[in-house]
């Protein structure tokens, strides 16, 4: 095996520089550990073209079923793009750091925190927000259950709770109140509507699994 001892890469804060690794006996020592996959090192070392870095990124995705295309500052969070560029203000900003769940949306059917998702990462994917959940005027069973159980007060966390609740049922995590409580704990409700939320999800799960 060959390594380029001349090359010096300055480490950033997260990892060692190449030079540090080379100085560290441990790191070199484990290079000989056997059993790594099927590719040989020679195959792995075949040079491959780097991708170009872009300052502005063209992104196309489906939002609530409709195709959309945007040119984005790659810093933009999916949440800010939904709210500020697409006018979909149902998803809320409660923390901007993945700590509260108020921004929960579905990406390819999975619940995610939109505030912690780079908008460029949903390129070619399906995004569903609370605005896309009902079928026209017909509420999704989860929305109806939230009304029936008064599973909300101020309503600020509610879109996120409902999107999380729908996913919770689809994932198969609504099997018991205890399981619902665990799998809904990523959605803070400061009004304290938790018991109603659990009851609503139990109810909606019965309808959804009908």
């Amino acid at each position, binding site marked *: *095996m*060959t390594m*380029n001892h001349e090359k010096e*890469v*300055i*480490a*950033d*804060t*997260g*990892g*060692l*520089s*190449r030079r*540090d*690794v080379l100085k*560290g006996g*441990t*790191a070199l020592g*484990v*290079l000989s*550990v056997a*059993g*790594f*996959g099927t590719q040989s*090192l020679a195959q*792995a070392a*075949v*040079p*491959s*073209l*780097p*991708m*170009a*870095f*872009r*300052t502005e*990124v063209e992104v196309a995705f489906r939002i609530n079923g409709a195709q959309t295309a945007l040119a984005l500052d*790659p*810093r933009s969070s999916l949440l800010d793009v939904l709210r500020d560029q697409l006018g979909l203000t149902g998803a809320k900003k409660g923390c*901007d*750091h*993945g700590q509260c*769940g108020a921004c*929960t949306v579905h990406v390819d059917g*999975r*619940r*995610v*925190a939109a505030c*912690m*998702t*780079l908008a*460029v*990462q949903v390129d070619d994917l399906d995004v569903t927000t609370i605005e896309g959940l009902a079928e026209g005027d017909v509420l999704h069973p989860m929305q109806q259950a939230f009304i029936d159980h008064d599973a909300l007060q101020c309503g600020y966390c509610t879109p996120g709770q409902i999107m*999380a609740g729908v*996913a919770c049922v689809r*994932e198969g995590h609504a099997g018991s109140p205890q399981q619902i*409580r*665990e799998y809904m*704990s*990523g959605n803070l409700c400061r009004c304290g509507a938790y018991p109603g939320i659990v009851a609503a999800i139990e109810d909606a799960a019965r309808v959804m699994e009908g």
Partner: protein
Amino acid sequence: MKRFDYARPMDLESAVATLSAGGEGTRLIAGGTTMFDLMKLDVEMPGRIVDINNLSELKTMETSGDELRLGALVRMADAAEDARLKAEFPVLSEALWKAASQQLRNMASLGGNLLQRTRCAYFRHGAPFACNKRNPGSGCAAIGGANRSHALFGGSDACIAAYPGDFAVALIAMDALIDVAGPQGRRTIPIAELHRQPGTQPQHDATLSSEEIIVQIRIPANAVGKASTYHKIRDRESYAFAVVSSAAAVRIENGVVADARIALGGVATVPWRASRAEQALIGRRIDAQTAAEAGRIAFEGATPLSHNAFKIELGANVVSDALMIAAGRA
């Protein structure tokens, strides 16, 4: 957050090449749950980001053979649900589903999770705090500060920040191997050698170079996984980091312990293997007394700080409880 340029390679080789081409200040992003978070806090300030989410070869999960192979881009939520992990390696499944929230587990990659950075407030929240990890040479405000959540093991005069993750703690108990790709090819690192204690260079969390990418996690599929648990004690019932956690696994033969694994989370600068406590159990029956003894041994040598001395007693009990849960599954 600083502006950055963005690239999204479509395969591993291209990703490595892109990372190299980016040069200084280039960082990977996968799920983004750590990286994007720290970028918003201006703790990470990459000028270029390489998005590896399209590397399909890193998304496979092979759990049927005598070695479990979990691709680095497998999402935590998916691995947590794997039937074999649930049945034969509950320690791994539990470590995954007891972390963060389902939204974040749907996003976070296994590889990224291993490299999750510390929750030390002095690290995360920038000026005016001294932090050698964020700003080498500036000092450590946590020593003598609000250090309830800091490390009792593996700290140094330069840094006492605790490693916050769960999955790596479970993996260290399972002797996992980490496959890594870089410009010079591929290599394998035992998980115990992936993370670095701070020593005099707390800015380096891991032994990876800035140009390397975790490809997959391999776990020997031996019998010690079956009777295992990840016991995590938090300040609330869910969606919180560990105050103390313990991965525990035992293999019982003829009523006595033939193999024991104990690792600690929330209390050390790296995922912490409690080898002496494991050894103390070999050849003995697991009962309340031997489990408690193992717990005490696991916390021997702990260096308590001004606000976390309680974790010595708590931690010993958590290890003991974890062992009893694990043994109950034997």
